[in-house]
């Protein structure tokens, strides 16, 4: 349990990111049958969130400290990527007052940032530990 506490935290945050991205803090809805630009950013976030969650599960299951650290590095890179998706990689709607700017993007930034922090700590701890073991 203690060994996996960071992995569990990573999984929980990734799950919140994935599920929240199309529920609680989803981007702007469709309008007159047309999806808006931010919809594709939302889909990308959901997809990366799901991949991150699966990686976190794999990280929990694996016993080898080195592999755990490697996956944690992967998770930190993915979460860093998820932060820059809305607005930078995929553009959002035109006005800052719209939902994708005021709710979706900040929520993704906050959860992504926390995920990066946790994963970086996890990776660093893992690297130090595997160094000690060998």
């Amino acid at each position: 349990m203690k060994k996996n506490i960071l992995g569990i935290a990573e999984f929980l945050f990734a799950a919140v990111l994935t599920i929240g991205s199309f529920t609680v803090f989803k981007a702007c809805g469709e309008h007159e049958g047309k999806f808006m630009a931010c919809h594709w950013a939302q889909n990308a976030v959901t997809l990366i969130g799901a991949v991150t969650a699966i990686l976190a599960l794999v990280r929990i299951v694996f016993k080898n400290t080195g592999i755990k650290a490697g996956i944690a590095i992967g998770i930190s890179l993915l979460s860093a990527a998820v932060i820059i998706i809305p607005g930078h990689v995929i553009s959002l709607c035109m006005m800052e007052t719209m939902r994708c700017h005021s709710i979706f993007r900040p929520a993704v930034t906050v959860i992504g940032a926390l995920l990066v922090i946790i994963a970086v700590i996890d990776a660093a701890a893992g690297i130090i530990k595997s160094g000690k073991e060998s």
Partner: protein
Amino acid sequence: MRLRALPLNDLRRKPIRTAALTVIALVLSAAVFGGEILIKSLQKGLASLEERLGADIIVLPEGAENKVDLENILLQGTPGYFYMDKSVADEIAAIDGISQLSTQYFLVSANAECCTAQVQIIGFDEHSDFTVKPWLKEVYDGSLKDNEIIVGAGLSTSVGHTLSLYGVECKAVGKLERTGTGLDTAVYTTNDTVKRLIQASADRGIAVLSKQSPEDVISSVYIKAAEGADIDELAISINTQIDGVQAVRTKTMMTETADKLNVISKSITVLTAVVWGLAAVIMLSAYYLTANERKKEFAVLRTIGFSRKQLSRLVLTESLITAGTGGITGVGLTVLVIVPFLKAIEQKTALPLLMPSHITVSLYGAAVILIVLLTGSASAALSAYKLSHIDTGKILREGC
């Protein structure tokens, strides 16, 4: 074994107590810092709004709902429109005591391509304007050509790019500075372009929320009073001499918002004070209780040769570590939540919010961490005194 490791050791061996004290410090710093940043953002937002308007008096068509509409446009960015006859501007210009006067025409687009939200389009008179151009961040060459627009900071369109309005590709040639007001999401253009937009909407069968042309009507008149002129009197003369209009002093409008802001600032201040008091009391009692628990430990340390000063330092260091960790984390989390969500808070509260500069925010962060450190060490001071002045002999004999 290093002496410096002693406080950390104590904290590590009492994880629940350490976590509780850290969390209290975290809540305290988050509350004080968050509250302070919100108050500063409000003050800056209001100051910016006042500056942004740049006019002493705004004249708009008579009717209470029009005034509410104007406030919504300014504060919330809710697009609105109202019209009065163009001749009003000339009538006003005839009144004494006016130094500058400029008219604006408000148009609301049903939707711009890609966006469900309505866009406020403002047609302004380039020659007489004194309220838009001073806010230009990226300067255009001097005059707007056909289908050229200036965009507010809240729109993602950058200079050089186009924005499609009713199918008309409008080129952004200038961008305004961020003001934290509703005007950040407006589009500014000439009345000629406005006319073309209305025509285009009619051609495409898109409902336009106004049928009147900027050739016949205007929405508002911005007035700057001449030096030495009494602004109140000027507003009164406009109201009495011209029918169907109302002259609103921007100061009055500001005062209403400022009053609202005052109430909010005060509530935040009171709340922050309550949290601070509560945290101080909890910390004080936590340290006081542990002081009783740790008497024997400190008596032993005394026999080993710890001086009173060293014992006090031990307690204070422990409190500084928990308060420091909690304080820094609290400020960090607050930045992580408030900064990205400021726009959402602004929309929910309908208040002008403008984030203070990075330097100001950093200074406040540092000040809050200092306050939390002081609160932590002050709460621990009593227990530090008690523990360093124990009756060693008595405690050792009692064995408790």
